[in-house]
């Protein structure tokens, strides 16, 4: 169990892992995540289940700090100490009409299973995926397969439309396209921007939040966010929340709690 069966580099510092995890595979629904602990001294980090195949779950990991960098060095055959899940509430999948799925950067991986499910249940699915530049764009083929329309943006214009995913979303709204629901996953700033785009149009919008977590089962409160003025625990009440109600500033502040320690950790790791 928990063995890495396959590892692929999707983009610089973005790796895909297929992990043998038969129990979790059977239960996984779109929008859920696992908590991973690599080794005895390791942290517990949450990662979204980007896909499942027979007995394996697919994780797509962006190397941003010590633990994800360490994970990037692991080879096929390595057995992770722990893979726990599936955690969190699944995304609410329903036939709503026209659904726009927005994925930014690494967020394209977690938006994929949701997009697929939204399509399978009979929605018209418009997907917008974006990255900083062409080489960082992942899952393009997979997204194309499960979308009726696929739009691509890059910050530097090296591929697709130059600009942000929100520019594309704005464009669709300006064209007068009828949109019943928007689901957005990506960096917090992106999810915030999407919320601001859809808010004036009253388009129902959900985002999948990524605060710091420890247990992932509702025991510690590390993952608390404020939604509609109320404190919620992301790992059990979410990770999906109404984008128009989320306090994004608080989320960003809380993501920076351990900045100093994370830098120290990275420095030590790089020396090895």
């Amino acid at each position: 169990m928990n063995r890495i069966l396959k590892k692929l580099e999707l983009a610089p510092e973005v790796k895909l892992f297929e992990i043998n995890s038969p129990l979790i595979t059977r239960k996984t629904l779109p929008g859920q995540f696992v908590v991973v602990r690599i080794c005895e001294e390791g942290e517990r980090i949450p990662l979204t289940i980007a896909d499942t195949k027979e007995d394996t779950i697919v994780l797509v990991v962006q190397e941003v700090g010590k633990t994800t960098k360490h994970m990037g060095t692991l080879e096929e055959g390595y057995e992770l100490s722990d893979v726990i899940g599936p955690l969190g509430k699944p995304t609410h999948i329903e036939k709503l009409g026209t659904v726009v799925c927005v994925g930014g950067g690494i967020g394209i991986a977690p938006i994929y299973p949701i997009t697929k499910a939204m399509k399978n249940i009979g929605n018209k699915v418009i997907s917008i995926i974006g990255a900083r530049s062409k080489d960082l764009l992942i899952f393009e083929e997979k997204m194309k397969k499960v979308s009726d329309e696929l739009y691509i943006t890059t910050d530097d214009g090296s591929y697709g439309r130059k600009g942000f995913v929100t520019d594309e979303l704005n464009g669709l709204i300006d064209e007068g396209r009828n949109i019943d629901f928007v689901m957005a996953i990506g960096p917090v700033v992106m999810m915030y921007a999407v919320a601001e785009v859809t808010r004036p149009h009253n388009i129902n919008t959900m985002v999948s939040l990524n605060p710091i977590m420890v247990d992932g089962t509702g025991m510690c409160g590390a993952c608390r966010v404020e939604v509609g003025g109320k404190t919620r625990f992301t790992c059990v009440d979410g990770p999906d929340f109404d984008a128009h109600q989320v306090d994004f500033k608080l989320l960003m502040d809380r993501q920076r709690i351990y900045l100093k320690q994370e830098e120290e950790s990275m420095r030590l790791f790089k020396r090895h």
Partner: protein
Amino acid sequence: MPKVRPKKTPIPKQSPKKRVKNFNEVALGYSEKQAVKEAKRCLQCKKPVCISGCPVEIDIPGFIKLIAEKDFKEAIRLMKEKNVLPAICGRVCPQEDQCEKVCVLAEKFEPVGIGRLERFIADWEAEQGEMALPPKPSLTGKKVAVVGSGPAGLTVAGDLVKLGHSLTIFEALHKTGGVLVYGIPEFRLPKAIVQREVDYVHKLGAEIVTSFVVGKTKTVDELLKEYDAVFLGTGAGLPWFMQIPGENYNGIYSANEYLTRSNLMKAYLFPKYDTPIVRGKRVAVIGGGNVAMDSARTGLRLGAEKSMIIYRRSRKELPARIEEIENAEEEGIVFEFLTLPVRYYTDDKGWVKEMECIRMKLGKPDASGRRRPLPIKGSNFKIPVDTVVVAIGQSPNPLVPSTTPGLETGKHGNIIADEQTGKTSKKGVFAGGDIVTGAATVILAMGAGRIAAKSMDEYLNTGEW
């Protein structure tokens, strides 16, 4: 009453100055000589009332007599008939409210140091190396799933494997022991000791599956397809907050998070271990129970210049174990009694920098029998802080109840189980410990486990519900 030394034989401890700089155990335990000396204080009462004070009814005079006679091997064997976790109970039971409270000596003198002797005998056994295992029973062919590896689950597991049932423990975290590993700090209960006790249950024949979240990885109904009975010992793992303004600022923790980072994830050893923790200079802990004491003392050991307990009643009402209150005082924890936080203030980066409090006075007794704290109007004042730990209690984690149709729960989300049998409203499902009672004690959880194990055995044998 024959002549008896009025005071308990003192237990050697690390000096306060030294111990606030490390996470090693504070109390060092009796030597053989000290243990024998203390054991001789016991009067060997004909009607040993002390036993009635112990939720698992240990033969207290029995094991103490064997210590006095230096037959330690037999003493531990006798102990383990009733208690599979003596090294733990000896350290963390609130003895002053249980066995030692009713010890006849306590009427005039200090009671017999029952907890200290219990700890001694368990540690003695560990020092001998091999733990004696009871003879293997013949298998009954029945399968039991225990959910949660805290004291309740471990007791059920220990009892039922001894009776020949096949047993699997499912634990959500990556380590077994429940609060004993993620909550209670190393300096009060070394994790090696918890591991030792867990190993014992494992050696008895229980299978242990960690990182398995019942309700997520599998539901109780799915377990019931594979197992003949299920015991739920999932504890009270949902932290409460006060719901006051600013409570989500950076630097404000639930005690569960603070202690989990430090204990389970070993953040006190960062960066050797990867999990970080905020090492605050001015730590304020809200609450007055064991959890609050543990948090404040952890804060000190993580390098705080000032670590405070903010409690809304007075010293007399502190619910923590007396020994831990005394230890905390010795270590220089500052107590702000009759004080209630009302809001937090932050700097421009979202970090807590001040806590506004209001002074309280004690009014008439409330439902719990303790005098109700009432705010004194206009007494607001501010305390500069950089770390806050909210330790005002926790309630049962809803993960299992919310995914188990037919399982009745009470007002506070606790699972309803019969006190005499541990039976829940769902056939084949038993429960006990904090998940039923709300946050309580290790020994009460074990007591509930013992009761449930007995009726589970009956159910497994007869099939009668």
